[in-house]
Structures are given as structure tokens and as C-alpha cells.
């Protein structure tokens, strides 16, 4: 839920100044509206919308595998379900680099990714006798549904649950929770395919959400910087500062560092305009005038990813035993944010209309 809080665009006042002195300072620059429109259309359709399509598809795969696990409870089927859960997480965490639009405004994030789990509500549901159907799951609080309760059921408290340990009720609950997650990922997908994709793609030419292309680009840059802030100063820093593994997200699957890495990976996806397919991205606008900025963004991004990947223990352990690696990763992610916020955003404000 955090956005980049401390971003004071140095650029906007500069722009105001520039505008007050000249009618239009964009006439002299080589990037053009056609390229910008192409970039926005590609990002909107082939990155953002494609990611939500992908998440919905992967959630359906997850659902099929937990249904299989329900009927044929073997360790092999459990392993498949776990792998499918992680696959959905890859897409979801990447998409957090463009957490604007309906996902944010419609408050979808808390409904699928609330942490912590309310274990009292969760256990009550598990030990109760209500039929575990859609209506029942819908009535549950956010903190008892979504990714993490599913994660808990698949992995168990210590991450070493076996198929033999599943109760019938747990399996039913798992299926019902996954059905609910599937419905919500469909909602997310639909909000994009039913109009928000056009809002972003047609920025500056008919979009009611973005009256200029610049506004859309700034929104994208804010999303990129925002996820850095969330990772470095929230998701990582809070458990780290408190030295409390209990504050870690995704602890059961030991997936936190992978989550963070995918968050940061999403930044490159939208920057390069490349999700499943490769198309025009922000990089094409940057490269038109400033190759060194392009290099800086890519090298800082690579440094952030490398620093995250250097954390080899599960995050809950790493905050206690690999502190310099964790600190280094937070620093590198903040460095990347600094460039996005301090250089990329002003660049986009200057070179787009």
C-alpha cells in the first residue's frame, strides 16, 4: 500500500519555470508522440494487462493442482501445487511494479495479499463445520484468505508439511481459498481488459484518466520508484530493524527474497516493455536522448538484483545472520530508486508531452 512517499520531484518546479519562459520547450527534442503512444500501448497491453492475464491463467493452474491434491493426496501432487503457488507469486510480485489503477483504487491488493494471517479466524474456519464454499470464504476477513493462508496450508508452520499430514477439511479449505483467489485475479484482469488498458494506452489522446502522455509516464515512473521504496524501506527494513522474523511475509514457503527479487524484476519489465513478449518500453524513449541514463538504470537494476540474489538464507534467518548482505540489498534498491526518481522521472517530464 505504500507508494513512494518522499519523492519530491525536483523536476516539476523546473518545468513550471521552463513553461513560464517559453511556449513549448518540447519542439526541439527528437522523441515524438508516435513513439510515446507506441510505448504506452505496449506497456498497457503487453506488460500490465498481459501480467494480469498471466496471473489469472497461473491461478487457474494452481486451482487445478490443489483440486488434484484434494482427490489424490500425494507428496508429488503437493510439490506440484507448491510450484504452482510460487509461479503465481512470480507474476503477482512483478506486477507490483505497476501498482496503480484499479488494483490500487479498488483495494484488490489487501484482498489477495494481506499479511499477517489472522490465525484465530483461520483456525475457527478450519475447525468449524460450515460448508467451505464461495459464500463462506467471501465472508471471511481479508486476513484469513488470499496468498498467505494458501501458503500456510501448502507448507505448514515450518515449511515441511507432508501430504500425509493434510486433513480432509484442510484440503477442502485449500480448494475453497484457491477458488476465491482465482475469482479475485479474474476481477483484476477484467478491470484492465474492460477499459483501464485503454485509459493508459490512449493517454493524451482521449484518456480521461491521463490527460497527457507525460502524466502516464510519471505514473509509471512513480510505480517503479514506489516498489523500490516498499521493498527497501518496508518489506525488508521492518523485519530487519526489528530483528523479528515474525514480521516477514511469505515465511512458510521461505519465498520472501524471491518475492523481493520479482518486485524489482518487474521494474525492468516495464522499463523495457517486455513481459511475455518484447516491445517498445520506456528505454526506447530514454535511449533516444540519453544513453548514459539508460546504462545507469540498467546497471543499478542489475546491482539491486545481484544484491538480493546474494542473500542465500531464507529472509527470516538472513536478517539475523546475513545482515551485511541484507543491508547491501536495501542500499542497492534505494540506489535504483534514487535514479528512477531523481533522473528518469525528470527526463520523462522533459521529453514527453
Amino acid at each position, binding site marked *: 500500500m505504500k507508494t513512494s512517499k518522499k519523492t519530491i520531484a525536483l523536476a516539476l518546479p*523546473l518545468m513550471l519555470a521552463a513553461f513560464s519562459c517559453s511556449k513549448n520547450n518540447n519542439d526541439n527534442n527528437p522523441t515524438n508522440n508516435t513513439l510515446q503512444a507506441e510505448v504506452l500501448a505496449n506497456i498497457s497491453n503487453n506488460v500490465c494487462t498481459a501480467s494480469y492475464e498471466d496471473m489469472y491463467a497461473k491461478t487457474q493452474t494452481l486451482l487445478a493442482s490443489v483440486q488434484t491434491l484434494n482427490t489424490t493426496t500425494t507428496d508429488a501432487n503437493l510439490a506440484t501445487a507448491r510450484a504452482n503457488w510460487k509461479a503465481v507469486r512470480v507474476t503477482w510480485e512483478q506486477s507490483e511494479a505497476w501498482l496503480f489503477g484499479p488494483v490500487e483504487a479498488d483495494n484488490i491488493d489487501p484482498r489477495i495479499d494481506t499479511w499477517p494471517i489472522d490465525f484465530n479466524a483461520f483456525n475457527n474456519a478450519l475447525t468449524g463445520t460450515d460448508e467451505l464454499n464461495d459464500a463462506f470464504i467471501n465472508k471471511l476477513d481479508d486476513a484469513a484468505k488470499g496468498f498467505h493462508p494458501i501458503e500456510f496450508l501448502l507448507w505448514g508452520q515450518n515449511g515441511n508439511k507432508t501430504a500425509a499430514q493434510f486433513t480432509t477439511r484442510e484440503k477442502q479449505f485449500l480448494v475453497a481459498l484457491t477458488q476465491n483467489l482465482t475469482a479475485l485475479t479474474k476481477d483484476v484482469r477484467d478491470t484492465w481488459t474492460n477499459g483501464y488498458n485503454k485509459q493508459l494506452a490512449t493517454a493524451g489522446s482521449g484518456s480521461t484518466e491521463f490527460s497527457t502522455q507525460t502524466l502516464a509516464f510519471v505514473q509509471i515512473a512513480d510505480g517503479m520508484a514506489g516498489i523500490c521504496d516498499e521493498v527497501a524501506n518496508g518489506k525488508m527494513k521492518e523485519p530487519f530493524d526489528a530483528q523479528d522474523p515474525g514480521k516477514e511475509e511469505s515465511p512458510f514457503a521461505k519465498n520472501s527474497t524471491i518475492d523481493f527479487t520479482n518486485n524489482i524484476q518487474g521494474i525492468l519489465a516495464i522499463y523495457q516493455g517486455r513481459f511475455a513478449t518484447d516491445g517498445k518500453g520506456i528505454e526506447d524513449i530514454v535511449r533516444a536522448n540519453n544513453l548514459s541514463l539508460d546504462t545507469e538504470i540498467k546497471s543499478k537494476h542489475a546491482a539491486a538484483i545481484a544484491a538480493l540474489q546474494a542473500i542465500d538464507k531464507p529472509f527470516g534467518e538472513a536478517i539475523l545472520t546475513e545482515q551485511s548482505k541484507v543491508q547491501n540489498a536495501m542500499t542497492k534498491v534505494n540506489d535504483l530508486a534514487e535514479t528512477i526518481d531523481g533522473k528518469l522521472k525528470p527526463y520523462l517530464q522533459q521529453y514527453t508531452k
Partner: protein
Amino acid sequence: MRKTTLAVLSIFVVVMLLQFACRKVDSLTPVDNPDSEWLSGGSQTAFDQGSGAFSHAFSSLPANLERIHEIGDAQFNATFVSAPAPLNPGLGPIFNNVSCGSCHVSDGRGKVPGLGESAANMLFRLSIPGEGEHGNPVPVPGYGDQLQTRALFGKQREGDVTITYTETGYKFADGTSYSLRAPTYTFNSLYMTMPGNVLLSPRVAAPVFGLGLLEAIDENTILTNADPDDKDGDGISGKANIVWDVYSQKKVLGRFGWKANQPNLLQQVAAAYNGDIGITTFLFPKESSEGQTQFDSAPNSKGYELSDSLLYSTHFYVRTLAVPVRRNVTDSKVVEGKALFTSAGCIKCHKADMRTGVDVTLPQVSNQLIHPYTDLLLHDMGTGLADNRPDFLAGGTEWRTAPLWGIGLTQKVNGHTNFLHDGRARNLMEAIMWHGGEALSAKNKVNNMSQKQRDALISFVESL
């Protein structure tokens, strides 16, 4: 993402000078600083017009205070769960939502529920006629002063409210049609009998940015604008609400909330924790359910659930959220709209300029020229908008002038344009046309405007 404040400020100063330098002399109007109008929050204005526009910290916080703001941010968005739990315990037993941020989404305005949906971003104040010992509304036996629409597993929620709307068509003087929807509220699923004379007031979650600046306005500055008996005969009264300060145990000026029924931010935050989430604090150490069947008194060694430091961090977070910069200030349509806003008289209550008082403890809010478009006073808004539920000195038809700063970004940040205390207005023009009472003359002037003028007026409000 830490910024060097000095650099920002110095660039700013240079920019101001630049702008000043290249402006045509004849376009200068006699104001102190031609750029101040852009800066709704004075030096604490955030330059973001995207979906995160309401979520920026003050720009010039030193690193230690910035960290407190960050901790408060995490706390504001922390999901509470039922006790016992290792992280964020204490939810309920009855509540409206699980975190501050789940009503004040992106620090902005709550959305009204669609047909058949439960109210997630709004709440219902309750009372029975009369006055409590501090002039406060009298709580409803068995319900308190707020309807909690959710409960923990095994507990009964107090009930819920069904909202239905009645559409009525109207015409502007030029013949253009418009329609207003009037809400009707009906209780459902009540856990016990509700007295027949209950008074109910719907309240949408309000934006939370800029509140530290509003709190920094001197009481005298606010009272200067008060004219409860309309001695100047302009048809506009402006009344201060006088409310109960729980900490100082005194009656003081009310500033926050739709009826200005909270004296300060700390009490506002603590009351919301208590009433909305079921979290007790040193200011409100009793559960909202105490005395009701949902209450189970698990004795707590600390006496209350949220530590003082976390409460203060949340308080500091909302106190230090910056105000978004205005857009399109010099656009000719916006300029025309501003003139219409002024000539129609809207500006009499939605005051453009306020100056905060001197505060040496938080220099960021000290002595700032801000543009909140509110006088923070109560006004009679007519029977159409009335909730008929007095709240301290605020009568049944009276509401506090809502700040308009940032209002044009509601769609961008919150994905909707529902305005007024209960979100009944579906766009800014509907909100204007709901005005009555003291605002009737201003509304009539808008009614008589041409389509072009009305468009200009809306463009102006959207630029705020």
C-alpha cells in the same frame, strides 16, 4: 530515496526567481508571491499528480522524523488481527475495518458501497436525542456512538445499513438537466433492538493529507472568521464547534471530522483506532464494546492494546502528509472558474488563504501560507444535506466546510468521484447543487450560470 532538503529548497528558490524574472510585468497581479497559488500546502506541497498524490511526506523532514513518518506509514497500513497473535493483535471484537489504510485508501477518500455491498469505507454515527455530560451526543444503549458492522468469529456484529437512493431530476436555469440522488438508510441484521428515536449520521472516510497544516492554524485565526449570529448580514454565519478534549479534559475548539467534532489529530487517530478497528490506546483504553454482549474482558497487563509509541507514529504520519500541488492554475478556463467561484460566494466559506501559526516544535508547519479552501467552521447546509443529528454544538443541518485542496485528484487516487459526507454526490457539480442553507445563494448563482461558466467553475475546482 532520501532527498537532500537543502538542494530541493535551493532549487525551489532559484526556480521562483526564474519564474518571477521572466514573467511579463503587466501580468502581475498585486499579490505577495505569484507562485503561492500553486502551492496549496505552502512549503509542504508535494509535486505529484498521480495515484500516489496524497501519500507524500513533508519534504523537509530531517532523517529521524522521516523515519518516524515511515514507521507511522507502516502502522497506518498494518492489518490488525484477532488476539492472541504475534503481529498486530487486538482487532475487534466488533469493528468496521482492519486497518486505517483500508478505509482511507491511498490516504484518500472512501468509496460508497455499491448496491447490496456492505459499507467498507464509511461508517454510521449513532446517538439518541439529548446531550451528554460534555455536550457530546448521547450514545445508544447497546450500540455506543457508532455502528460496528463487522465482528470477530463467534461474536455478533452490531448490524448493517442498507443504502437506497431516490433520483430526482432538476434543471439549471438554462434548461440543462441534472439529477441528484438522495440516500435512504435502513438498518438491517441488528443484534438487538434499536431505539425508535435513534439518530444516524453517515460519514465517508475523509482524505488524511494536509491535516498537520490545518492543525497548525491558530485558534484565533479560525475564530476571526466566525460570525455565528451573522452580524455582518452577509447570510453566512460560520460557527465554531466546541468539543471535548479527552486528554486535557477540557472543552476546546473542534477542527476535524465532518462536523468538526474532534479537537486534534491525536484524538482523531486514537478515536478511529478505538471505534473503527477495536484497538484500545492510552486515550481510549476501553473497548468500544464494553458493556455489550460482544465484550470479553481479557485482562491486559498493559491496560490497552496499542503502545504509545505506535499511536504517536500513526499520529505523526497523518500530521506530516503533504498537500498535492495545484494543476493548470494559469489555464484561462481555470482562471475564469476561480473568478466565478469568488463571485458566486463559494469563497466565503471555502476560504482560499489561511496562514498557519508559529510552531517551533515542528517548523515544517510553521507560518505557512496555505490554500485549504475551508474555514474549518460549521455552516447550515440546509435540510437536503441534514443528518439531523447534533454533534456537540453542530446542529442537525450544520457541517464543517470541507477542505477542497486535492479534490481534483480524487478520481486519479481513489478511482471515484463520490463527494459530500455520505458520498451521495457522483461528481463535483452534484456536490455543488446539494448545497443549501447558507450556501443557497451561492448555489442559485451556479444554477444561473451558462454551461460554459459551469464548466469553467468545475475546471477550477478540479485544479485544486
